[in-house]
């Protein structure tokens, strides 16, 4: 069970959270203007990297907030969490990202 740091409540057990998929996949402002391919891209394409992954979590059984985390998908190590709406941190500025 991972220990996930909610930006509001601090470190909490994984079972309190719900995973929310890849982060920073914004809903297009005006979907009607997208062609079918671009819409399909929004719906279904995810980067699914083997490495550092920006992803959403919701502290469902806690403060209820959605937030983002950067986690390594091999070691499951989370190096940083940040509030929804905040820009994805520049990975280069986060120490320790060279090792999973």
């Amino acid at each position, binding site marked *: *069970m*991972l220990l996930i740091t909610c930006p509001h409540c601090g470190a909490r057990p*994984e*079972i309190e959270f*719900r*995973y929310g*998929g890849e982060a920073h996949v914004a809903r297009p402002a005006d979907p009607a203007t997208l*062609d*079918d*391919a*671009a819409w*399909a*891209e929004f*719906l*279904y*394409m*995810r*980067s*699914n*990297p*083997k490495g550092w*992954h920006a*992803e959403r979590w919701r502290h469902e059984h806690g403060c209820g907030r959605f937030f983002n985390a950067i*986690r390594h*998908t*091999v*070691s*499951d190590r989370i190096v940083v969490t940040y509030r929804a709406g905040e820009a994805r941190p520049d990975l280069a500025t986060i120490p320790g990202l060279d090792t999973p």
Partner: protein
Amino acid sequence: MKFSLLSLARQALRGHADWPAQWRSPDPKPAYDAIILGAGGHGLATAYYLAREHGMRNIAVVEKGWLGGGNTGRNTTIIRSNYLWEESEAIYEHAVKLWETLSQELNYNVMYSPRGVMMLAHTIHDVQVFKRHVHANRLAGIDNEWLTAEQAKEFCPPLNIAPGMRYPILGAALQRRGGTARHDAVAWGYARGADRLGVDIIQNCEVTGIRRGAAGAITGIETTRGFIATPKLGVVAAGHTSVVMAMAGVRMPLESYPLQALVSEPIKPAMPCVVMSNTIHAYISQSDKGELVIGAGTDVYTSYSQTGALHVTTHTLDAICELFPDFRRVRMLRNWGGDRRRHARPLAHHRQDPGSRPLRQLRLGHRRLQGDAGLGSCLRGDDRTRRPASDRRPLLPRPVPDRSADRRGRRGGRRALRPPCC
């Protein structure tokens, strides 16, 4: 050397000194007519059928680790074809038919054991869903029958059907021809078969890049053992498919989630069949060696960790103990994970909306153990229905245009790409 009781006896007299290697460990040649990436069940079966059905000889399977060490070596070995959607029914039914004679075909005992797969219904909604399966399967000519709770108990005596259960068992859908097989033997049997047909299986050879020519067509792969030229590449990398496809600049509608399995210590035969419960998330069978083989739920987040979380294991085992209270004192021996890939878009969506292009890339490799034989043997045909290639047309995939690129107006490069299509 043909495997048989006789050859075993003969070898016994010689202290088993003369058994040949079941497959070679060749160094990669500079070039192949086609390369399959991933020596799991799907990759090896693909190579085998390419060689056997379609006479291709100059082909290789490249594998980053050891053959059969991916999901093929870590699944719960269930084989069934009682799927709901016609597309799935067709491919899995084709596969089940292949399974029935696969040991003889490969001269390798894959221990296919059609002992019956039973899916439990706990709610009225489950009953509706599974009855729909039963009807759909029968229409497709696939065996699947409805059992009452009492009949389910008769088929599987340790099953708890007490009406006072938290989620009582209201009935079950039974596919008698479903069952299990020995996961390792499947990989090894196909590997040995493919090797004998001249396929080079190159292990410890990780693909690190996909090289493409000026026109965008594939020219070969970069690997940890050097560059290997090929005009055609089949990607069958299961959970790693999107990672590999990214090397060719192709995005996939896939996400990889850890899926756990576990085995108990071996005990004398106690589980006569396979039992699955979707509602309370657990499935179980017993291997020939005696371990209870149990499948857990998927972990909630994408990962390649090949382990799973403890709370997933606890939930799986509390469900198993509800269904089989006799097994409460049995002990877990080993728990591991695989990286199952999951469509970011479920088949149900795909089906109702078959036009989404990216899936065209994906002929193979996103199915299950039970599909190994089936998918490996039928690469041709419309990818939507994935119908078996009964006509035995040459298998090697046609170039599949990436029409999503077209629409985006990025013709050029992508369009000419002959992407990993099998």
